[in-house]
């Protein structure tokens, strides 16, 4: 498994290289001139020209790319045009809040998603199923800006239990993680339900019952692990999305994460920051995919990663 993982990680390098080209081109194709934005509306042409020279923006595109890649290989992500700080520092400082919020959100999402999914599959077409699936449909359909604002209104403004925003102690995580986790919980619930319902029709479930096992044991020992295989893929994907930072939730709760940094950098045409974020998100997805594949092998012995495979 270690050999397989190393192979996969080495395989990511060319992929990241391609992504860097696309990210670079994509970012430079966004209309708008960062030098003009930084200089302000009443700047002279001379001032704008100076800024362009300072950041190398006056050079031809290929030259800019070569410089960018040369720095990248030395571990230098460049300097922000807006704040003049190293991009690496900015990402590092934004990454931790997003990562911790992602974990908190995935905790809720998995807890509620799996619970609701299992209940509704086991109590198929009974009132429990209808109630939980109503919740799940609501979770998918309610926009997070509305849910976030409603939670703030109720729990922060009216009841005063949690802060309205910002990052602090554990209490500051509750509302943003619930807001962010609700949609993911709903998706996981629906996946778990349909997957478990399929598994419950399998012959080996009947074998379990024929052994005289109680229904709880049949589901717990024989159905769940098989049903988890598609759920793991989907949860991994959702985890990746959350790790890229949620622009809406971070904005509502003034959360100092990657999502807000991204939207601010795009508005300011802060090229080095946008490029670095794209690279980071790609790397995150690649690593999560690897993790999901390894988990697959753990869940399903048929696809264990043996040497050479």
């Amino acid at each position: 498994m270690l050999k397989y993982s190393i192979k996969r990680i080495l395989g990511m390098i060319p992929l990241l290289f391609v992504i860097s080209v696309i990210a670079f081109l994509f970012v430079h194709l966004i209309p708008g001139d960062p030098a003009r934005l930084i200089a302000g509306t009443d700047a002279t042409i001379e001032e704008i020209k100076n800024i362009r020279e300072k950041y190398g923006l006056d050079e031809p595109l290929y030259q800019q790319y070569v410089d960018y890649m040369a720095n990248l290989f030395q571990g230098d992500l460049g300097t922000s045009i807006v704040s003049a700080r190293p991009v690496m520092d900015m990402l590092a400082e934004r990454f931790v809040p997003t990562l911790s919020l992602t974990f908190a959100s995935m905790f809720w999402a998995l807890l509620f998603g799996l619970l609701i999914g299992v209940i509704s599959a086991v109590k198929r077409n009974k009132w429990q199923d209808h109630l939980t699936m109503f919740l799940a449909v609501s979770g998918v359909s309610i926009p997070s800006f509305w849910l976030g604002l409603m939670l703030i209104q109720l729990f922060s403004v009216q009841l005063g239990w949690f802060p309205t925003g910002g990052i602090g102690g554990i209490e500051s995580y509750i509302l943003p993680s619930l807001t962010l986790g609700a949609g993911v919980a709903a998706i996981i619930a629906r996946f778990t339900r349909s997957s478990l319902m399929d598994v419950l029709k399998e012959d080996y479930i009947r074998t379990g019952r024929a052994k005289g096992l109680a229904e709880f044991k049949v589901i717990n020992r024989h159905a769940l692990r098989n049903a988890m295989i598609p759920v793991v893929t989907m949860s991994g994907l959702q985890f990746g999305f959350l790790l890229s930072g949620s622009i809406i939730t971070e904005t509502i709760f003034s959360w100092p994460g990657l999502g807000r940094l991204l939207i601010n950098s795009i508005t300011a045409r802060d090229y080095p920051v946008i490029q670095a974020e794209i690279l980071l998100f790609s790397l995150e997805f690649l690593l999560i995919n690897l993790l999901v594949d390894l988990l697959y092998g753990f869940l399903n012995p048929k696809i264990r990663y043996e040497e050479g495979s």
Partner: protein
Amino acid sequence: MSNPILSINQMYTSFHVDGETIPAVEGIDLSLYPGEIVGLVGESGSGKSVTSLSVMQLLEGTPGKVTGGDILFENQNLLEMTDREKRKLRGNDISMIFQEPMTSLNPVIKIGKQLVEAIREHQSISKRGAEKHAVYMLDQVGIPRAEEIMKEYPHQLSGGMRQRVMIAMAMSCDPKLLIADEPTTALDVTIQAQILDVMRNMRDEHHTAILFITHDLGVIAEMCDRVAVMYAGRIVEQGTVYEIFENPKHPYTKGLLGSIPKIGSRAERLDSIKGQVPTAEDRPKGCKFANRCPFVYKHCWEEEPPLFDGENRCWLHEQKGESL
């Protein structure tokens, strides 16, 4: 003869689909005595598997339900038992082998663990002891390198091996009754013969009663002491294997036997029974076989024949025996 281990009396099973009730089994009587192998034959759709699932009480989770009659296991009515009491019997005193060896084992759990689970569910025995017993059982059903197989996953075994594992699992608690629902249908002929041997040995050594469900008359002739022929949810004829094969009375049984190819026969076409088993909604009003029967006459369409002499359901035999 001793008391029957299983006695099915006037059992009705039907399926409720979209507000409609579809009868699958309509009033069957069948008994099994300890150490006896009874064959249940019939075409697809005759109600054989539904009968076996009814006895196992495995219809939960399907739209099917036993709606009438009794199923007595050692004189206790399975239909009046609580779930807990039924679970105590299932896998312990009554076990079942299914038609689908490829899919009946859990693909993500090692063989050993699946066997140990079946043993420890019903016996207070240490894990080590259960493992030992599991290896012994695998050995009994002719699995080579049983110790290693314990650590393997189902996908590493062939269909025949998996079916042996299923038999080992079903026999692991030394059941009094084994229900085998087409256990060899999915296997090739040589493997089939080996599996049948294993089951016969089990009967000889443990005195297990076996209800053997199949549509393969060759297997019935080889395995069974008695045979019950099912058609359209009813038993239309029953008797010893010798009686049924030598002197079939019901035209359906005759038709089934006639459709077996014979060595030395010069016929270019196999005989077959015309038509198909009618679906539950299309069953004729009188004798259910009337629309396919070569000997059909007026009375057959009007009234359903009872079981004459407790043996066969055909008006042609009314004169010989007395109606029960």
